């Protein structure tokens, strides 16, 4: 065990006093480095708070391209109307169809004359 005495205590006190020299003031360079670190930490935290943007699928891109739900509603209405007109055209459209494609003629597919030729 090392014993200490007054002379040792004085020696230590002198050593501590020598080491307690006036400390330097922080340089501008040090303060700038510290603030650069703070900025980096802040920027990183900001990135963590903002969720990354997910790339939309091709269905979403197509949906957006045609104008979204409002346009899709109009498109559906037009489709239904077209289908209805095709199945049951109004009378007024009959005249126009004659003008565009000529008169309608009827051709019997299974005419009696043809069947007669086949009979022995």
């Amino acid at each position, binding site marked *: *065990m*090392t014993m*200490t005495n007054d*002379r*040792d205590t*004085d*020696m*230590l006190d*002198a*050593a*501590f006093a*020598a*080491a*307690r*020299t*006036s*400390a*330097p*003031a*922080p*340089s501008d360079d*040090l*303060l700038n*480095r*510290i*603030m650069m*670190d*703070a*900025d980096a*930490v*802040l920027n990183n*935290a*900001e990135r963590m708070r903002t969720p990354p943007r997910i790339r939309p699928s091709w269905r979403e891109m197509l949906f957006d391209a045609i104008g979204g739900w409002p346009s899709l509603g109009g498109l559906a209405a037009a489709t239904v109307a077209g289908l209805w007109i095709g199945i049951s055209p109004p009378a007024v459209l009959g005249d126009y169809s004659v003008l565009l494609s000529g008169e309608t003629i009827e051709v019997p597919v299974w005419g009696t004359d043809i069947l007669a030729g086949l009979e022995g």
Partner: protein
Amino acid sequence: MFDQSEHQRDAALLAAFAAGDRTAAMALSERLTPRILAQAYRMLGNRAEAEDVAQEAMLRLWRIAPEWDANRARVTTWLYRVVANLCTDRLRKSGRGVALDAVAEPEDGAASVASQMQDSARAHALRDALASLPDRQAQAVALRHLEELGNPEIAEIMDTNVRTVESLIARGKKGLVARLRGRKAELGYDDDQ
């Protein structure tokens, strides 16, 4: 030593920084950097190394800001602990204190050159001796005799009780005496008696 309102101000600034306030970081840097740089310089005796330690300690503070609990610790107490740990790590890794020619000369024009050199040699020898002590003893001695903190505050910094701090300081000082005795004449101690 900071009073309670200053501790609360540190905590408020740290919370503001965590919320994204850059000016809070500037205010904290200006308040805390001189203190931690001084602590590191007194333990390491080298300005460049002390600046690196101060920067590292502040970086750790920025990183812990979002999780900071003002009810659990004071910012300054936490920084004392971080700086003490970083300095003892550096002293340990270097194997001994910094080179004598890296020790800054005192700028007091009244002191003789011989006296300044003797003070530098003594400070250097003390840091060498501190570097060879167990970490906890070195930290306790440095906080008591270089930072001149009270034992209760040292106990808080080292996360222990006052009795343990007293024991660490007593053992640390005995260790320092044992290491410095052989260099008494070299360090001019005989002339002082």
